[in-house]
């Protein structure tokens, strides 16, 4: 038994970190209804600021630490409060997407300020020497200190919420913010305070955890994601539950160290928090409720994604965009003749990204099912091609079809939570799925090929070889064209309507006779299958496969870019892909540093979109149309109404279905 003690000690250390983070997450969710996906990014930026003060400028920890926790972290919290306040009550997807954009924002800032965010060490705040407890058991002062700090912080927070005026005010605001404001409680103050407390906890997490990792833009963030599980186990409401289950998860994650240090078991062990998160979400299912904040329905003008009241104009517009699409497509066919060789490879990846973008538009924009795991499907397609397409790629077609077939059960697994969960919890479940795929599947040496990786062949289909970069490009372009055409036809037909009504009112759809289970799973499976096809192409196009290409963070980027482009329109996928090529893949001859600013711009753009979740492009289109219609007013009866919609689309969301 005593052999377990060292692992329990490590587990309690990890658990304390999870506990701090989970309490920070629960606190802001309770008071503001925002689940902060960017919590790890808060910890990260705090750790970098601390590194700057303490390790780079050699300030004493006695100055740097108070400065961090009393000035910097609260400032971050203040920013969060200011950004999320206008989003209160919007549909759950908006704060999700905005907080994902916050991750991108903080990452971009770190990369810009700290020299590309290169890995560096952070000196420990608490000395790492250890003391002898009993038998063979040594406990590090840092481990003990972290546990004590977490207990003290958690206890203080609990006391604050239980026994002070702030606590009473918080509970009042959580219960009913309108009533609370009537009796003179300033809800804004309560929310601001809880954001600040939450980011201070995040700062603590960053400073306490970083010395055990290398400080970069990835690791710290990933570890903090582990705190999502205890937060959800606590149903995003109970602080003691969050802390307690965090300790348990920390210990569970550490104990198996005794038996294995590599291979599948080790992968499962390090993924334990995400597996627990996924299972918890499925088991708790219906019991999980979105926070008590009344959800304002998205106003019609926001929801109509540029669908014009005037059907004639709508048809005109559709014809015009189809024309533009066809012209673009023809242009793309001749593009390899214009641009230099290496750029064709980038264009190919961009085209594959656009295919994935289309699956996101269909799933998220049309059917209203958020998915943060789309690139996991891409990875499945890519690795199956990498392993099974044969030396000269003659089995490419079979491997691609197999990848698509494997995507069917996987799509059902990702879709399962959607039967009982929506909005935030669905997003969390898909994120957990992506993290499990990263940790267990793509991290497995037998699949990824370890350090040397594996090389996928260029395809040979029915004797036709696509070995050259240009041929590969044309193959991908052809597939994108086919996928776009299919999506376009679907959108106009019964299946498109079926998907749209799933997002607009699942309740009404159900009562009209729609089987929600089949429809939702169908949407997840179809988009997963096409993403796997994109993955097969990606494998053959890139050839050298790297698990990083399919990481959850790529899925998050894809969601951001598609949202930026307009998640309800197919052009959104294209605009997202173009942004990806320019800002992330280096299509244009611009300095590397400029890419960081483009990524920063993408993050800011999405954050700015908060008020109009349908995409900047939709806004600019609406604006363009409005100014056009002012220039040449057409005497048509529905014109006035249409204009009215556009004007309203710039105001805050209105109660479109007040009904009562």
């Amino acid at each position, binding site marked *: 038994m005593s052999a377990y003690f060292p692992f329990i000690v490590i587990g309690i250390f990890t658990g304390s970190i999870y506990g701090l983070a989970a309490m920070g997450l629960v606190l802001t969710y309770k008071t503001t209804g925002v689940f902060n996906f960017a919590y790890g990014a808060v910890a990260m930026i705090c750790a970098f600021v601390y590194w700057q003060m303490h390790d780079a400028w050699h300030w004493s920890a006695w100055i740097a630490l108070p400065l961090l926790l009393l000035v910097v972290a609260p400032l971050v919290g203040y920013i969060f409060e200011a950004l999320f306040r206008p989003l209160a009550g919007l549909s759950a997807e908006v704060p999700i997407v905005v907080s994902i954009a916050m991750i991108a924002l903080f990452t971009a800032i770190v990369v810009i300020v700290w020299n590309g965010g290169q890995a560096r060490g952070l000196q420990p705040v608490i000395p790492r020497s250890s003391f002898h407890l009993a038998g063979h058991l040594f406990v590090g002062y840092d481990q003990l200190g972290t546990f004590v700090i977490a207990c003290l912080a958690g206890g203080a927070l609990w006391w604050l919420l239980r026994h002070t005026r702030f606590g009473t005010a918080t509970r009042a605001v959580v219960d009913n913010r309108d009533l609370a404001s009537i009796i003179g409680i300033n809800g804004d103050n309560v929310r601001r305070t809880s954001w600040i407390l939450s980011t201070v906890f995040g700062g603590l997490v960053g400073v306490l955890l970083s010395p055990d990792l290398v400080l970069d833009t990835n690791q710290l963030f990933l570890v903090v994601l582990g705190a999502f599980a205890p937060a959800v186990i606590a149903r995003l409401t109970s602080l003691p539950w969050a802390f307690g289950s965090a300790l348990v998860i920390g210990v569970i994650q550490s104990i198996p160290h005794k038996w294995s240090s590599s291979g599948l078991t080790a992968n499962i062990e390090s993924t334990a928090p995400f597996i627990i998160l996924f299972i918890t979400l499925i088991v708790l299912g219906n019991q999980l409720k979105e926070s008590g904040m009344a959800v304002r329905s*998205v*106003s*019609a*003008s926001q*929801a*109509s*994604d540029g*669908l*014009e*009241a*005037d*059907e*004639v104009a709508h048809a005109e517009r559709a014809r015009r965009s189809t024309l533009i699409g066809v012209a673009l497509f023809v242009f793309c066919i001749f593009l390899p003749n214009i641009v230099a060789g290496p750029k064709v490879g980038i264009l190919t990846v961009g085209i594959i990204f656009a295919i994935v973008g289309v699956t996101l538009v269909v799933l998220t924009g049309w059917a209203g099912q958020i998915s943060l795991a789309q690139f996991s499907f891409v990875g499945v397609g890519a690795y199956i091609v990498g392993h099974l397409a044969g030396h000269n790629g003659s089995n490419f077609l079979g491997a691609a079809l197999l990848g698509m077939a494997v995507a069917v059960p996987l799509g059902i697994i990702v879709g399962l939570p959607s039967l009982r969960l929506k909005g935030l919890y669905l997003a969390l479940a898909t994120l957990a799925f992506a993290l499990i795929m990263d940790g267990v599947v793509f991290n497995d040496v037998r699949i990824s090929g370890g350090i040397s990786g594996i090389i996928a062949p260029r395809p040979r289909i029915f004797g036709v070889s696509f070995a050259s970069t240009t041929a590969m490009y044309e193959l991908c372009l052809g597939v994108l064209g086919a996928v776009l055409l299919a999506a376009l036809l679907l959108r106009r*037909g*019964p*299946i498109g*309507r*079926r998907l*749209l*009504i799933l*997002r*607009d*009112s699942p*309740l*009404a*759809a*159900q*009562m*009209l*006779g*729609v*089987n*929600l289970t089949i429809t939702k799973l169908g949407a997840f499976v179809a988009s997963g299958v096409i993403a796997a096809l994109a993955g097969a192409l990606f494998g053959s196009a890139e050839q050298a496969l790297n698990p990083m290409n399919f990481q959850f963070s790529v899925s998050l980027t894809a969601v951001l870019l598609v949202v930026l482009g307009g998640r*309800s329109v197919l052009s959104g996928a294209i605009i997202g892909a173009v942004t990806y090529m320019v800002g992330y893949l280096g299509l244009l001859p611009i300095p590397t540093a400029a890419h960081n600013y483009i990524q920063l711009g993408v993050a800011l753009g999405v954050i700015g979109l908060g008020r109009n979740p349908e995409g900047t492009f939709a806004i600019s289109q609406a604006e363009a149309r409005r100014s056009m219609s002012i220039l040449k007013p057409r005497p048509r009866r*529905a014109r006035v*109404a249409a204009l*009215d*919609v556009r004007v309203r689309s710039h105001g805050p969301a209105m109660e*479109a*279905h*007040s*009904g*009562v």
Partner: protein
Amino acid sequence: MASDLTSPSAVDTGTVPAAGPAGPGASAPAGAILSANGISVRFGGLQALQSVDLHVLRGQITGLIGPNGAGKTTMFNVLCGLIAPTEGKVVFDGTTINRWPPHRRGRAGMARTFQRLELFTRMSVEDNLVAAWESSHPGALLGRGRATRKQKVAEVMELVGLERVANRVAGELPTGLGRLVELGRALCTDPRVLLLDEPSSGLDHGETQHFSQILQSVVGGRGNGEPAVLLVEHDMALVMQVCSTITVLDFGRRIAAGTPAEIRADAGVRAAYLGESDVA
């Protein structure tokens, strides 16, 4: 004010079985297309419904009324399959359907509207109706029956009076038109029974009158007294005007059932509900 309103809807409905007021616990009368028998629902410690009977009769508009919190919405959701009753049976056209999920009930001919509008906000009014038709007709996803669909949608739009706004985006319509879209959508599913949840809320007097006229023209339109209508309403004048039979709930119990005249005369109902303001 309403003493002259003795169930005018009977005029429209032609030959229908007489609406005998069913006593508590009675089995379904012959004319019932949809019956709730002895329904009880408990939410934790709260007894939301206690052994309630309700019969929706062919060829009629049946009213379900009661003060706030009486259990009307719960009853409605039990009928639709959104809430499973702790006790009792829901019988649709002779078949017990307790275990049917909502979409199966929809396909079988039960259609409903919502108090808080549940429109397909991003689609045009016409597409709302088209989507409804497609949802309830198997094979429609594969494009089958397009001609039938066109005809049906056109018919319903004319009946409900939505041609004017056919191409407007549903989400931008005022509540009154929104209610009509929901009614039209329900009608596109070829319903055998129509369940209407507070259709007059948010409507002014004129709109309510318009709605009730449409409603009366719809009842029994398919023959054999179908669709029958269940109307959950706050607006007493509307209920008294259009309903042939009324069931009154209070605190989860059925306190009365009968014709409007009987309900109006019922002392218990007056005490519980009508009392001070409306009918006095």
